[in-house]
């Protein structure tokens, strides 16, 4: 059987909730028993709104946060035992290229940081221009500073930096949400192209379901730290089974009749689109009622 590139087993993470004086008054379960795996060369989409736990999962995969329980395996190796060399295999592209690049470093210096960290011994200049070429930027961009670049160009630099150590897995945390739609399309094209050429596996985190539909192969829908629905993106989007997925899909602003027809119909409560809590609470009441009748 094909070994998955990333496997996540029963991952849990809670954060303390403190009052104004710093006393613990409870805890919030940010990630609550999450399991999923990504096969080599595939794109797994993690969809969720703010507070769903998607960034906490990303941070744990990057080793920036320690799980309370559960395991993360990268290419069959347990993350907790990998130590420093973990970052050779996993790299991340952040949401806002404006703040993830150091403004005092040239593009070349930024891209070289991971090279130095992992003791790169070849020709640095040549490697930097290779990396820039890979993300379709001219080699002379190495001398520029982030403020001289457009948003799309900055994100390309961030991708080049992530690719510098030839990782196997890239965590893409909302990589295009700060970009204009035409720029987004080109960055997505680039990511698709790179995945093929460099044998990359992607964990794609986004709240943009239309983009997810077009970029990810498999999708997991996160709600309050739990994956409420998972499957091939086409089947989850065409036949959503969980109410939260249905609500998410119903909320997407779309531009064509076909898309509008595809969105699930959500019952209005008091003339308004219900919140997730309300919709799910209502369904629970319904289910209990039908349970009692049945």
């Amino acid at each position, binding site marked *: 059987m094909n070994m998955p590139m990333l496997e996540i087993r029963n991952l849990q993470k809670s954060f303390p909730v403190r009052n104004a004086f710093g006393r613990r008054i409870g805890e919030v379960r940010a990630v609550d028993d999450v399991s999923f795996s990504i096969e080599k060369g595939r794109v797994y989409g993690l969809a969720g*709104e*703010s507070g769903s736990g998607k960034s906490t999962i990303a941070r744990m995969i990057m080793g920036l946060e320690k799980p309370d329980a559960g395991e993360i395996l990268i290419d069959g190796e347990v993350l907790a035992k990998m130590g420093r060399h973990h970052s050779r295999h996993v790299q991340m592209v952040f949401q806002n290229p404006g703040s993830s690049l150091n403004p005092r470093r040239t593009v070349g210096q930024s891209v070289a940081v991971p090279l130095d960290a992992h003791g790169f011994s070849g020709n640095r200049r040549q490697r930097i221009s290779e990396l820039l070429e890979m993300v379709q930027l001219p080699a002379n961009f190495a001398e520029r500073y982030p403020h001289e670049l457009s*948003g799309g160009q900055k994100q390309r630099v961030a991708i080049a930096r992530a690719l510098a150590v030839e990782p196997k897995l890239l965590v893409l945390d909302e990589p295009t949400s700060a970009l*204009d*739609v*035409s*720029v*987004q*399309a*080109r960055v*997505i*094209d680039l990511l698709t192209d790179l995945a093929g050429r460099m044998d990359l596996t992607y964990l794609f985190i986004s*709240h*943009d*379901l*239309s*983009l997810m*539909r*077009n*970029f990810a192969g498999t999708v997991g829908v996160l709600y309050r730290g739990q994956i409420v629905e998972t499957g091939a*993106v*086409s089947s989850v*989007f065409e036949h959503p089974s969980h109410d939260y997925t249905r*609500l*998410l*899909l*119903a*909320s*997407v*602003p*779309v*531009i*064509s009749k*076909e*898309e509008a027809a*595809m*969105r699930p119909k959500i019952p209005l409560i*008091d*003339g*308004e*689109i219900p*919140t*997730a809590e309300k919709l799910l609470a209502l369904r629970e009441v319904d289910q209990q009622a039908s349970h009692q009748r049945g």
Partner: protein
Amino acid sequence: MSFPLLRVSNLSVEFSTYGRTSRVLHGVSLDVPARSQVALVGESGSGKTVTMKAIMGLLRQPPARITSGEIYYDGADLLTMPEKDRLRLRGTAMSMVFQDPMSSLNPVFTVGDQMGTILKYADKRLGRSRSRTERMARVHQVLEQVRMRDPERVTQAFPIMLSGGMRQRVLIAMALLSEPQLLIADEPGTALDVTTQAQILKLLKDLVEERGLALLMITHNLGVVRETSNYVYVMNKGTIVEHGEAAGIFDNPRDPYTRSLIDAVPRLTGGMRSSGEVRA
């Protein structure tokens, strides 16, 4: 033919900074008839925000300079009327819903205080006056109009105590306080989660229809345009490249820029078209 509620005619604006002058609007014209829902859509740098600011009189001059054009509200040219008359319209007959609910509310005053103050000054400009109790009654009334369940609690809350969606509702309520005829919304809901955004867009649409307002929606999101507006102006590099009924433009764009923009939008149905030919 009747004159539209808002007409921008051949508006050109340039900015001068450090001795360099750049033209950012090149003869922009658009109409917002009474009771209509119109969208102005464009990517960053297209000039949509400058157009909005010129309409609301929020352009700082200098560095900006309006080099040509007129902006008519209800038949009167906003650009030539005395500042006093213009103040009377701004925030009263025409009002704005801003994008970022956190930075457009003052963190150290309660929602009720802020809304009361807005109403007080709007009244003052219009030469009216109400007692504090009357003002608070009106504040409660508009909070109910934006479907806030507990207006009493909301007026006593500080902005930080409200969720993003509730703050956006407060901003809409603020815009409605002085019963405007024209609502200009700048990317409402973009900072919110998709389910909350859907609620806000539906609320805006319902309010505009119920109260017979005209809506000018400024956005970069074509989906938001289709959900809220009937008529669209597409803007690129300081000019209107195409305008028409929303349905027509989405199904059959004529301008190459509009077409590339529409093609770049990922679809919920999948099958993203190649974006190779998208022009920025």
